[in-house]
């Protein structure tokens, strides 16, 4: 009798184990881990190197950067800023007709952004593995090619942004605003004052001494003054931050 009772107990315990073991094991296996993956795959390293970027020195200017007209880049960026503004305005609107345009506006923004990103990617100004600092790369390469920094001006951009906002408020169409941007940007973009290349000019790029943050432009080389634009405070044209702090 004792034997049969013991067998019954053992059988019951085995059934119980089968039923409840998975839940207990699942909890036991769920232990805290300090594992933090840090390795980049060999394939990615190879593809990054093949594009001329250095993953171990992210501040270095990549090989083969293209320097296209700043007008093209500015236009592409202003276009996606404008489409984003239009999308945001519609999203915040309580007018059903304006909200009905949301999918179309979102698509326009996605396309404009993808276009601008592709342009900068093709020019090697940005890379998904590298923290983005396209202006620094562009400025250095522009200077190496033309002997002077590109004619970018913060005050001009502020005025352009105001004009775009006003145009959106006035209900102008996308095409009208784009024409307006094109005309204004074309008027703003002045040729570099010293078009001759610097002899042996490397532009000082890729020395790895840069920390990659936006403080660069505060202590970076002073720009060559643009005709008609005195180098006054808040108007340095090269990303000085004093205008909005």
């Amino acid at each position, binding site marked *: 009798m004792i034997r049969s009772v013991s067998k019954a107990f053992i059988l019951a315990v085995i059934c119980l184990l089968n039923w409840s073991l998975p839940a207990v094991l*699942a909890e036991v296996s769920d232990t805290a881990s300090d594992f*933090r993956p840090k390795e980049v795959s060999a394939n990615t390293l190879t*593809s990054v190197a093949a594009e001329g970027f250095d993953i171990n020195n992210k501040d270095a200017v990549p090989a083969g950067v293209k320097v296209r007209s700043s007008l093209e880049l500015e236009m592409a960026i202003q276009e996606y800023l404008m489409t984003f503004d239009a999308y945001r305005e519609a999203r915040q609107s309580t007018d059903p007709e304006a909200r009905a345009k949301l999918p179309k506006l979102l698509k326009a923004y996605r*396309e404009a952004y*993808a276009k601008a990103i592709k342009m900068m*990617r093709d020019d090697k100004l940005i890379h998904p*593995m590298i923290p983005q*600092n396209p202006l620094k790369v562009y400025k250095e390469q522009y200077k190496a090619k033309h002997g002077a920094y590109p004619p970018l001006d913060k005050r001009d951009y502020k005025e352009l942004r105001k004009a775009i906002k006003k145009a959106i408020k006035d209900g102008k169409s996308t095409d009208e605003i784009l024409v307006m941007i094109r005309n204004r940007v074309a008027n703003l973009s002045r040729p570099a004052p010293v078009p001759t290349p610097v002899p042996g000019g490397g532009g000082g790029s890729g020395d790895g001494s840069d920390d990659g943050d936006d403080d660069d432009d505060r202590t970076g080389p002073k720009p060559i003054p643009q005709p008609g634009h005195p180098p006054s405070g808040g108007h340095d044209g090269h990303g000085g931050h004093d205008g909005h702090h």
Partner: protein
Amino acid sequence: MTRRRGIALFLVLALVAVFVPVLLYLSQTGSSQVRQAMKFHEVQQSESVALSGTNSGLCRLRGNLTGLQQLSNLLLGDTSYDLTLKPTGQGVVLQNLYHLFSRCALGRHSYILMSDAEQLQPDPDPPVMVISHDTWNTVEPYDINLAADVTAMENLRGQDLLGFEATKNYERGKTPAQYESDLLAKQSSLPQELKADWSSIAGVLKEEKLQF
């Protein structure tokens, strides 16, 4: 008589010896399920708080906060989260570019969201326009205040973005008809729930395709 008493005593002792551990075991199984429910709650809560942390970072940028910010132990209700705003450089129209990291760890679950953001020049006063383009997440226990960990996250996100870039290039390289037929060809490998609606979904995706 004595023999019977002995057997009865043995049976009682055997019952106690077997049932006490079994009861303990059963109670532990029950509490295990409770703990799993608690863990699920922690996961959900940490993810929501990290998402709110990202939004609070974007709001700070809209308020024209600039430069590196490493903010620890910020509170959302009783739950704390860390926020790091790391400037990476400037864009071509002089906008400031940032990487935002928001981390919330509850119990043994850690959740980090990484976003990128463009902060435009104030026009003329705050709130300034801020655009956040994409958000990446990880459950690995990185420390968002450590430069090495931040670099590791940027690298891993970069790998994912390279994959996304390949997808976008594929999408761009196809005509709308090719794109739609490629999508429809995948119908057989989809879950049953999606199969019935797939043709209409593929139609919408075709309309949304990048075309330039």
